[in-house]
Structures are given as structure tokens and as C-alpha cells.
């Protein structure tokens, strides 16, 4: 080592004996100017794109902003007044008809009921969408559909109490039969017991309770009064909640080893997914009554809810099937190795994991369904799009064009965008890096 060092540099040509001249400081790599250079004008192509798009944005804003914001009118009694006050958009119509856009023709002194339901909905969904809440909250989630139904449609409290009683009765039948025979049979027996109750005794029992104990309850509201975003939420949330159990069954059926079950499930799923929702809504509006015993009539909203639930369940089944397929094979094998039978392994090993993986997909299905609920306006229901017609035909607002769809679009955007961001966040949170 000391050899090499002993040679000094003065007689070696390629070793520099003086320092090089200083270079100028490098161009900024931080700060706003550098940022602009890197992100907007890094190449000549970039610069052209930036200038063209920047110009377009400026032109669009210059054209729209005065109409949309600066010259808009927020308070007036009619379109004519709006025009007198200012030249821009007449959002006064949204202001004046906000109640209808949100609630349809729901009685105004009862607005607290849908509003309360709306907030309770978040409490009910919380334990599914957030995993560090007390598990006890799930009981509220389970009770929420009944509560929501009662809050929105009203009616004697007995009808709800008796529904709960019917479920308890079904549970006892299930327990009783399962002590005698196999569990599958017990489930069927329990369901049959509940159905029997609803087919035979429910209505009479409610009548009886009302006549004996008086009609304690909420003022009933007809379905026809539901409208606006209230209807959107009722249809969307019912569709998604109702489709969850159906979708799970269909997904399990599609994965089943039994060819008959598999065929029925695949047939149903592919049929529903193959036709547009609007044709199914036509079925709900003109055909469904033909399929029911003569004399039965449902109101149109209930028929739509049935159809939308069936529709959503096919999509839900595909989402959950994705979750089932994403589970590592080893989970199924481990459950088998522990000696668990099909129902045990499905309930305790497969479904909890598969459903957890599927949550983002379920949220996406919900967003799709939430947007698709607007189609009910085509069969004459008064959802936010359907209700524009009656508002426009009011002579005060006759001739209003853009303001109503802009408002509806904004509300839809806010809800859908929030949900999609949440689902992305959840996806990242669930992605714990486990890959089989």
C-alpha cells in the first residue's frame, strides 16, 4: 500500500494538479419556478399542451363563471323576477323548491323523519365501514331496515313490533327443529315459519293489536308522496341492503358443486346482468302484477324496490364471487382439514374474509346503483330528475333549463365522489399485503 502512495503526482500526466474552475450553480430544483418548469414546461410538447389546455380552461371559466356565479340570482319568486334582478343563472328555483328536490311531496311537518333516518343510516353503516367500533353496533345495523321503514312510511308501531315477534318466532322454530334434525332443514323450517306468519296472520294480528291497544305510532305516509333525493336514497339503500343476502346466496350457489343449483344461479345472474335496468323497471311498472295472484296489488314504489333489489343482487353476487375467488385456496383447505363442514367453514372461515375483501366492490356497486336510481324517472316516479317536470310546469318557473340538472348533478357528484374516495381508502387499508 505504501508503495502506491509514495509516488507523488507531479510526474503522472493524468492526475490533475490544480482544481477545475467552478461551475455555475445548477438551475433551481426547488421552489415555484422550478416546479413550473418541471411540471408544466419540461419539453416543448409539454409547453404546447400546457398553453392549449390553459387557454381552454381560461376561456371556459371566463364564459361560465359570470353566468354560474357572479350574475346568479339566489332569491326570487319566479323566473321573471330572476331575469329582472340579474342576467345569470336563476338558482332561486333550487332555493325555493329545495324541499321538493330533497323530499318530493313528503308532508313538510314530517321532514324530521327522513332526516333522522338519513343520520341513523350512517350509524347503521358505521360498523361495516369502520373496523374499530364496538361490535354491539351491528345489532343496530340489523334493526335499521325495519326502523327506517317505519320512520319513512309511518303506521302503527304494532306492525313493527309484530315483525320483530315474527323473526323471534322463526328463530325459535329454527332452534326447535335443529335440536331434532339437521341444520339445513332447520333453516328452511325457520324461514317457512316466518313466511307463514306473514302470509296468514300478520295483517290480522296488526288489526287486532290496533283495536286492543289503540293505534300508537307515526302518521302514515303514502308511497306516492316519496320523491326527490329521499326516493333516490330509499331505492338505492334498499336495493343494496336487500341485495346483500341475496347476492351472497347467489355467489355461493354459483361456486357450488351441485350442477342444478349452479345452473339456476348462473342463469339468474346472467339474465339480470344481460338486460338493461330500464326494461326491468318496465317489468315492475306494467308486468309484475301479472306474475302475482289475481287481486294482489303493490304500489309502484314497492314494485320498483323489488325489481331493483333483484337487479342489484346479480351485480352483488358477482362482486362477492370475486371476493370468494380472491381467497387463497389454503383457507378452504385449512377449514376442511379442521373437519369443518360446508356451513361451518362458510360461516366462520370463508364469508368473513371474502366479504371483507368485497367491501370496496360493494361500495362501487352501491355507487352504480345510486346513479341508476335516476332511471325510475322514466317510469314516472318523482326522483330528482322526475321532479324537474312538475317544477318546470309551474308557471313561475316555466322556461328554467340548466339550474335544476346542475343542482341534481352536483348533489350526485358529491355523494358518489365521497363514496368512491372512501372505497379507495378502505381498499388501501384492507390491503395488508397478504398475497397467497
Amino acid at each position, binding site marked *: 500500500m505504501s508503495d502506491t502512495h509514495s509516488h507523488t503526482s507531479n510526474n503522472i500526466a493524468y492526475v490533475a494538479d490544480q482544481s477545475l474552475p467552478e461551475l455555475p450553480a445548477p438551475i433551481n430544483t426547488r421552489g415555484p419556478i422550478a416546479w413550473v418548469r418541471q411540471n408544466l414546461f419540461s419539453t416543448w410538447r409539454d409547453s404546447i*399542451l400546457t398553453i392549449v*389546455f390553459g387557454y381552454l380552461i381560461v376561456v371556459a371559466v371566463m364564459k361560465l363563471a359570470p353566468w354560474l356565479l357572479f350574475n346568479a340570482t339566489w332569491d326570487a319568486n319566479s323566473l321573471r323576477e330572476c331575469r329582472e334582478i340579474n342576467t345569470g343563472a336563476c338558482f332561486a328555483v333550487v332555493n325555493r323548491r329545495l324541499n321538493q328536490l330533497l323530499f318530493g311531496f313528503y308532508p313538510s311537518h314530517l321532514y324530521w323523519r327522513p332526516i333522522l333516518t338519513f343520520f341513523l343510516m350512517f350509524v347503521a353503516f358505521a360498523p361495516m365501514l369502520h373496523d374499530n367500533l364496538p361490535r354491539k353496533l351491528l345489532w343496530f345495523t340489523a334493526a335499521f331496515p325495519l326502523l327506517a321503514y317505519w320512520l319513512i312510511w309511518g303506521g302503527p308501531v304494532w306492525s313493527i313490533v309484530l315483525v320483530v315477534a315474527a323473526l323471534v318466532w322463526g328463530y325459535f322454530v329454527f332452534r326447535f327443529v335443529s335440536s331434532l334434525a339437521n341444520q339445513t332443514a332447520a333453516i328452511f323450517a325457520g324461514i317457512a315459519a316466518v313466511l307463514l306468519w306473514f302470509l296468514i296472520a300478520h295483517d290480522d294480528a296488526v288489526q287486532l293489536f290496533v283495536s286492543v291497544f289503540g293505534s300508537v305510532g307515526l302518521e302514515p305516509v303514502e308511497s306516492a308522496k316519496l320523491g326527490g333525493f329521499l326516493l333516490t336514497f330509499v331505492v338505492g339503500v334498499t336495493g343494496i341492503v336487500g341485495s346483500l343476502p341475496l347476492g351472497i346466496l347467489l355467489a355461493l350457489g354459483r361456486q357450488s358443486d*351441485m350442477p*342444478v343449483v349452479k345452473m339456476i344461479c348462473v342463469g339468474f345472474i346472467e339474465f339480470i346482468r344481460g338486460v338493461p335496468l330500464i326494461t326491468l323497471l318496465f317489468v315492475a311498472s306494467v308486468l309484475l302484477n301479472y306474475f302475482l295472484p289475481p287481486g294482489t296489488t303493490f304500489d309502484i314504489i314497492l314494485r320498483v324496490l323489488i325489481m331493483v333489489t333483484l337487479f342489484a343482487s346479480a351485480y352483488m353476487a358477482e362482486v362477492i364471487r370475486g371476493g370468494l375467488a380472491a381467497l387463497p385456496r389454503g383457507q378452504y383447505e385449512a377449514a376442511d382439514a379442521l373437519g369443518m363442514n360446508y356451513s361451518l367453514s362458510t360461516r366462520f372461515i370463508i364469508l368473513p374474509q371474502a366479504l371483507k375483501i368485497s367491501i370496496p366492490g360493494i361500495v362501487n356497486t352501491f355507487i352504480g346503483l345510486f346513479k341508476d336510481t335516476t332511471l325510475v324517472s322514466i317510469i314516472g316516479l318523482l326522483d330528482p*330528475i322526475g321532479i324537474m317536470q312538475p317544477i318546470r310546469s309551474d308557471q313561475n318557473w316555466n322556461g328554467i333549463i340548466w339550474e335544476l340538472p346542475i343542482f341534481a348533478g352536483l348533489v350526485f357528484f358529491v355523494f358518489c365522489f365521497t363514496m368512491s374516495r372512501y372505497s379507495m381508502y378502505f381498499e388501501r387499508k384492507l390491503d395488508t399485503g397478504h398475497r397467497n
Partner: protein
Amino acid sequence: MTVASGFADEVQPFRLGMLINDKRYRSYTLQIITIFLFMLAFAWLVNNVVENFARAGRDFSFSYLFQPAAYDINQTLIEYTSRSTHLRAAVVGILNTLLIAFLGCILATVLGVVIGVLRLSKNWLVSRLMTVYIEGFRNVPVLLWILLASTALAASLPSPRQAPVLLGGAFVPTNRGFYVPSPVWGDGSVFLGIVFVASIIGALVFGRWAHARQAATGEILPTFWIKLAIIILPALLLYFILGRPVTLEYPELKGFNFQGGLFVRNSFMALWLALSLYTAAFIAENVRSGIQAISNGQTEAAYSLGLQPSRTMNLVILPQALRIIIPPLISQYLNLTKNSSLAIAVGYMDITGTLGGITLNQTGKEMECLLLVMAFYLIVSLLISLVMNIYNNAMALKER
């Protein structure tokens, strides 16, 4: 069971409980029960329908399809008058659905791919703008977009009398629709068509040959320009040799309206634009995620081989990304086709508007009409999923 009990009596006598408790029989039992319940439910539904039909004094028949429709359709691809049958009206509707679906898929794909690629641009402004586009269109119902597009066209364009005549009369936007020149096929245009198709095939063959040559010798030909010449030049020469067999008929203002030329209605334009813009947002997301799914190492490897960014994209990234992009792309096509049934909201006469709309209301044959409409959509979507499955099987990574 102890070992001592032996293996002799393994075959147990059959008991009824084994139907449920024995794994060998349980699946059969359950399936038979399922079939039974399914048929029971089916019979119940059919029975209800029969009973309801009998009560209403109706019959289930498709003979109405052969009666005169007695209504007009504003856009027909085949000959149709109000004296034509309902069946022909349905066919007109089917063709209109297929037309809007086909054109919508093309525009949506072009827009979606451009937007999806721009979304990944390093240019901050461009990528943000594309994000705004994607999120804006995805999160608002398509029905609202269709209605907005229809309103926009009707409200922002002038009436025919004040309409500007653009491009020397070739393009007239009015609040009723767009007038464009229509081609008039004269004598000899058949030859022109044949030559055109032949030269497209020629260009494809040339492309293959050039590719093979490049693989063999390493020489690169400017294929794009040569292909363009092969496609255009022969047809152009023949066009002048035959004495311009194809001419254009321009729209002319007569009275309150334009006559002649091709009239593209606003209902069509609104539906087409709205469906394409909406679906493009979804396609753009598919394209983006497909491109991002290709690992960064591929890009780096291509760069280290000295490929330029554009060639890296075309030769390395896109071929791999397509495998990921195409399945969701096809399901977006399916969605677009199904969403085209919203034509009914703007009065475009597709199958839902003719067979499922006016025919249904005129004849009162709800069951038959809706069955046919659903069958049509079902066939289309099954065909599309068939194509998708074939593609998936062909493109699946051949792992060994």
C-alpha cells in the same frame, strides 16, 4: 368405531336419514329439492300469469308483430313507413340500437384511450384536467348527462333559418340537428368500393411483409406512409378514371328548413355524445390502471435498450397493458349498449323506443313486447361476453 369391529360390515343398510346426513346422497337430495322448489315457483308464476290473462280476456300471441304499426319513426336505416308492420318497426329499432352502440363504442374508445394516457402525463395541468374529467363524468348519472347534452344542443344552437353554414355548406348545425352532405352513389361506385377494400387488404399484407423483412434484415421501412399510399392512391386514381362516380349532395335551405343532405337528429347526437363521454371516463380509468399495472421495470428495461418513450409505450407497455385493459373495456361496451336504452329519454327510436315503447303502448302486449326486448339485449350481451371469453382464452398467459 373400533378396529375390532372389523371391515366386514362396511356397507351399511340404507336409511332415510342418510339422504340428509350422508355426504354421498346429500347433494342429490338437495338438488332434487331445489329442482322441485324451482319448478313449483315457476309453475306458480306461470299459473298466475295464465289466470290474470284469462281474467283480463287477453291472449299470449305474437301475431301483432305482423300488423301495420301505424306510427312513424324519425330515423330509419332501412325502408320504413307507417304502413309497415310492428316487426319491421322492431327491426328499425334494433338497427338504431346497434348503430348508436357501435358509434358510441368507437368514440368512447378513442376518447377513453386519449384521456387515460393523458391522465398519466407528467404535465401537471393536463393530468389534473383529465382527473377532473374522469371524476366529473363518472360520478354523475348517465341519464343526467343525456338530458344535459340534449338540452345543450337544443338551447345553444340556432334555428335552421339563422344557422351558420360551415365548411362551404358541408356542415350545418341547427337546434333540430346537424346537416351534413350525403354521398350519392353513381355508376361504377361498386368498383370503387371493391378496389378500396382490396387496397386495405393489400396494406395489411404489406404490413406483414414489412414486419417479416424487418425481423429478418433489421431494415425499417416507413410503413405508415406506404400503407396510407396503398390505401388511398388506387381508389383516388380510379375515382377520376371513372369520372367521379360518387358525388356529395349538400343540404340547402328551403323555406324554414334544410333539404337534402344527411340529417343527423339532435336526439341521436345528444345520446351519442353523452354515452361516449360518460363511458370514456370509465375506459380512461381502465386504460390508466392497465398501464400502471405494468411494472416499472419494463419501462426501465426498454429505456436501457435505448428505446424512445413513444416507442417504449407502443412496443413494450401497450401490448402488455392491452391484456389487462381489454376485458374491462369489453364490459364497458356492454354497459354502453345497455345504457343506450336510455334513448327513450330523448326520443331516439331504438328498440326500447319502438318495440318497448310505442308498439307496447299501441297494442297493449306488454308481456310479449318486453320479452322480445329483453331477449334482444340478452342475445347481444351473451354475444359480447362470448367474444370476451374467446379473447381471454386466447390472450391468457401461457404458463408452464
